[in-house]
């Protein structure tokens, strides 16, 4: 990473550990009492790949202790795929010839009805980057509507100002998800050709702006496949622990999105194998035992079944990444990326039950929202 990162994010002091660590150090790190960034780096190292089973056992024990034998469920809801930005890897980028759509209030109601029938109570609203067609006001009003129907509403949308995050929280948004995509500034610039998303720092500081303005939880992540994965994960770890230290009343959550096929045909330049993904997840669980770790339906059913409860504590289910994907009343558009695990709620929950895990649909209550004045 040639362009300097802020001190609180810079992974360089620990890069050496990635190469130097041996298996004895890995076993020590996996069993450490209060693991920190050093142990995390050791657990990410190639040497740790040989101790993956040890790590997985430890990760499962910690997940069970902190989250029990449960998996929290949520579903993404894409409300608009208009986008002014040019992200090389994204199916919604503005140079893709796809059908664009923004949900009308009636369509949003239809989608909501379909999601309610599926029993979901945590909904993650998504849009493209900031655009006049689907701007802050549209997102805020959509959140307010969803908050009138669901107990827990989260948003994965464009980076906002402090004031906007305050308005979003007041509208009923509990948490935001903001992936930095890549922490490597050079690569970030190359991958984000145009549009508002080009501003690395504005995006990097977005979770902090959200947490400072009433959003309870910030989800962070890096899109695996865009850059060297191990330095990326060190940055992600530092980003998460920085937020936790700075906002003691806030929650953090970490997601592990991996590049999937999407329209435009971007292929991951730094492909991450399932084994490495599992190692990364276990390393995060061992070093951040009380942080929710999230996995989406980007991953295969086989991988999801295997990693559920072994590090991962929260999963999306029966997802559609297209606008209007849940209800037939809406004009459908292509998805942002391909869903690998296409199972419905019932069959996914049956799998969890067979593994001795309880799906949790409702883990929050609307009563915790500030009532409108």
């Amino acid at each position, binding site marked *: 990473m040639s362009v300097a990162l802020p001190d609180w994010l810079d992974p360089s002091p620990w890069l050496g550990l990635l190469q130097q660590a041996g298996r004895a150090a890995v076993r020590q790190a996996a069993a450490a009492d209060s693991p920190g960034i050093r142990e995390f780096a050791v657990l990410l190292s190639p040497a740790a790949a040989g101790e993956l089973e040890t790590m997985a056992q430890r990760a499962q024990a910690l997940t069970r202790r902190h989250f029990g034998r*449960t998996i929290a469920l949520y579903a993404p809801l894409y409300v608009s795929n208009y986008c002014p930005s040019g992200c090389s890897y994204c199916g919604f980028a503005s140079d893709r010839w796809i059908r664009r759509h923004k949900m009308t209030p009636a369509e949003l109601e239809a989608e909501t009805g379909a999601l309610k029938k599926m029993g979901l109570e945590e909904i993650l609203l998504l849009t493209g980057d900031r655009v006049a067609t689907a701007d802050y006001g549209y997102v805020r009003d959509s959140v307010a509507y969803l908050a009138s129907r669901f107990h827990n509403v989260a948003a994965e949308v464009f980076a906002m100002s402090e004031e906007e995050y305050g308005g979003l929280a007041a509208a009923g948004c509990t948490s935001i998800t903001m992936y930095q995509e890549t922490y490597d500034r050079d690569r970030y610039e190359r991958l984000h050709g145009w549009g508002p998303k080009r501003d690395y720092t504005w995006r990097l500081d977005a979770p902090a702006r959200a947490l400072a303005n009433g959003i309870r939880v910030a989800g962070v992540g890096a899109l695996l496949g865009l850059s060297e994965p191990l330095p990326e994960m060190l940055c992600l770890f530092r980003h998460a622990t920085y937020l936790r230290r700075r906002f003691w009343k806030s929650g953090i959550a970490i997601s592990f999105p991996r590049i999937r096929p999407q329209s435009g045909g971007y292929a991951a330049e730094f492909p991450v194998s399932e084994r490495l993904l599992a190692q990364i997840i276990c390393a995060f669980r061992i070093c951040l035992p*009380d*942080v929710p770790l999230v996995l989406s339906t980007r991953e295969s059913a086989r991988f999801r079944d295997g990693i559920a409860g072994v590090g991962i504590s929260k999963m999306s289910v029966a997802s559609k990444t297209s606008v209007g994907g849940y209800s037939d009343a809406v004009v459908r558009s292509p998805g942002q990326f391909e869903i690998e695990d296409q199972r419905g709620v019932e069959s996914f929950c049956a799998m969890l039950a067979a593994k001795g895990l*309880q799906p949790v649909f409702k*883990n929050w209550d609307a009563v915790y929202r500030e009532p409108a004045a």
Partner: protein
Amino acid sequence: MNDGLRLGDRVFASRLLLGTGKFSSTPAMLRAVRASGAELVTLALRRFNRERSEDDIYGPLSTLEGITLVPNTSGAMNANEAVRAALLGRELSGSPFVKLEIHPNPHHLLPDPIETYEAAKALVAEGFFVLPYIAADPVLAKRLEEIGCAAVMPLGAAIGSGQGLTTLSMLKLILRDAGVPVIVDAGLRAPSEAAATMEMGGDAVLINSAIAAAENPELMAEAFGAAVRAGRQAWRAGLMPKSELAVATSPLTAFLGEPVL
């Protein structure tokens, strides 16, 4: 009932309270509740689900005989949120009890003493039997007693940590001075720790993770039930003195001369 646990206007035979989160399924949770012999069971308001019965833990628990439900305010970050949650929990469950928990940090889940105190005042005024979850702070415990809480629930260690009675010396001070029941909540891992809590005069313990995350939750629930009963009996029986007094080779009182008889 000779040795009941008195909380509010009720008396309970069992001194083990159970939390109901973290179980692999609702039937597994119900089996653990039954096996434990618990009569007081806490449940998070956020896990009430009126719209999807498979996801609802209130409905199945409310059908159990001999169980008093104690809704908890887990998820509340401040006093206002906790009071709203408690009022809603009472509407939904009809229970006069509330386990007041306010944890602004969703990771370590340690309770906020200031918000807890404020919420406790408001909820006592609303007529609740308030059971506040607190750090093992002897001063806060007395303050909460003074404003009318029905019990105090100091922690043994952080929720779900399984570290045992890390707050032992503070718990002993709380127990020595308390005028309301002291229910040690959170952090316990082994039945022996529950027994130790009872042996030193704890009025009750609350267990969740140690049972839900055990290999066999039902069997562990039974073990905790037995441990709590054994510890309570030991406390009533009175432990024999432990310390053996040392006899020094150079007496410290020789300067006083021989006693005059």
